């Protein structure tokens, strides 16, 4: 009890800290101006973070489009169709990849991916597309690893029951195994989503960080996290508060996403 509460106290402390530093600023310049203005020129006293909100959403959406289908398919395939001995080498490899620093992924993005995009698709190369692909690859191991664990945790009797009723292996998977493992899979996706929206250094390296509303996936964007990390080193006074306020917005977006995901789990659970 005491341990649980001390952990929670730590978590609450950091949330309060961010809100305390950022919220007064939002009220001072007005919520709509802060959220909906597209001008971010701290030197001129213009603090609009709409381009960064759009940037974060685009990049995260892209990462999910790349990472979740691949990760899920991989998890299902590896846990249902691969013999145990092969799994013993593949799972550690995946966990190894989860441990590779994001900066390494980012650097590969800069050296390999961005030049390819610049050459074959146009634009500056450092773009939404590059960031989405790199982030998608980055969250793959997380999504896969946790999904595999929860698919493996589904009792074998469930599968045997389905087979006994004459279901094919695939029917068993998508009608019995995946629904049973859903809570774990969603936890994996949320962790992956969190990593994607919260990733900073890799995104700074590959997204180009231009402050503008993107017109295409080939445009350069700046995410909320990049905005904080890029300018915090130099920011003072109002500018610094504005960056903490950016942190508050980020926090709220993450809370909303989690809330949506959690209600989705609960509602489906009720329907059954």
């Amino acid at each position, binding site marked *: 009890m005491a341990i649980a509460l001390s952990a929670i106290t730590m978590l609450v402390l950091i949330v309060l800290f961010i809100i305390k530093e950022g919220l007064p600023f939002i009220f001072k310049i007005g919520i709509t101006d802060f959220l909906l203005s597209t001008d*971010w*020129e*701290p*030197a*001129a006293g213009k603090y609009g973070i709409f381009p960064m909100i759009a940037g974060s959403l685009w990049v995260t959406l892209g990462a999910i489009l790349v990472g979740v289908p691949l990760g899920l398919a991989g998890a299902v395939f590896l846990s249902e169709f691969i013999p145990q001995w092969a799994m013993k080498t593949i799972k550690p490899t995946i966990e190894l990849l989860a441990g590779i620093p994001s900066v390494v992924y980012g650097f590969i993005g*800069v050296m390999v991916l*961005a*030049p390819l995009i*610049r050459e074959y698709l146009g634009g*500056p*190369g*450092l773009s939404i597309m590059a960031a989405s692909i790199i982030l998608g690859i980055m969250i793959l191991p997380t999504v896969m690893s946790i999904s595999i664990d929860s698919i493996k945790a589904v009792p074998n009797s469930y599968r045997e029951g389905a087979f006994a009723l004459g279901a094919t292996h695939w029917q068993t998977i998508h009608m019995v195994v995946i629904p049973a493992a859903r809570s774990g899979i969603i936890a994996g996706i949320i962790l992956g989503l969190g990593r994607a929206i919260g990733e900073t250094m890799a995104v*700074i*390296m590959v997204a*180009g*960080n*231009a*402050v*503008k509303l993107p017109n295409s996936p080939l445009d*350069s964007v*700046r995410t909320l996290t990049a905005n904080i*990390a*890029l*300018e*915090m*080193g*130099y*920011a*003072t*006074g109002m*500018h*610094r508060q504005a960056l903490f306020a950016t942190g508050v917005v980020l926090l709220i977006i993450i809370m909303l996403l989690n809330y949506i995901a959690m209600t989705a789990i609960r509602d489906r659970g009720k329907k059954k």
Partner: protein
Amino acid sequence: MKIKIIPLLFIILGFFTAYSSCGKEKYTITAAGSTAFQPFAEKLADQYMQLNQDTGVTIQGGGSAVGIQSALSGAADIGMADLVTLPPEAGSLSATVVARDGIAIIVNLKNKVGNLTLEQIQGIYSGVIKNWKTVGGNDHSITVVSREAGSGTRSSFEAIVKNISLTKEAIIQDSNGTVRETVINDANAVGYLSHGLVNDKIKQVSVNGVPCMTDEIIKGRYILVRPIFLLTKGAPKGKVKNLIDYILSSQGQETIKSSGLIPAK
């Protein structure tokens, strides 16, 4: 099993704490701030420590604002800042100019443009000039590379060039090194960085016909120049003064000059 491991680990932790209390005989000076000056500071610190074995010098980056804040809060003994004008909150700090630094305008090696006027630079960074053709280059759109808002290099650059309202298309990079890497990789890019960090993988363009070279900066003909300040709480004293004096000595200034920065005087 776990129950047994945890106390063991705490013992190791305790050992480290104990080790720390008896291992700390050396006096350590911490300097933090400007990423542009950081490489040079590391070099100077190494030399200083060879001469003064009893003193350790730790150099941290973070940016000019971190330099100012950590000097104010006491997190660092010396704050390093590279702004043309120091912000008002740095007013209570004692500032010593230890070097000057040229800001070089750089383009990709494949770019044939060799000179830009201040007006052209202002046009490019404001998004008015969008194609290299306009300034005598090939028919390609310009990829503008700039630094993050608040960067010492950027605010100095904008203060000297004047009237820049940065184009929204600009790619933003967070250090001199990354600006350089971006320009190396993109044939149509233009960027600016600390003169000391120009290498042979990029091409430097002259500004108003004057190349960014140490001699031209000393003569005052090259105009994109900013000072580098070391900030201390109150006038520097003791070991800190000793270090700053070393940097200002002819030996320290020689190191600064040979590394590509401009001596203070």
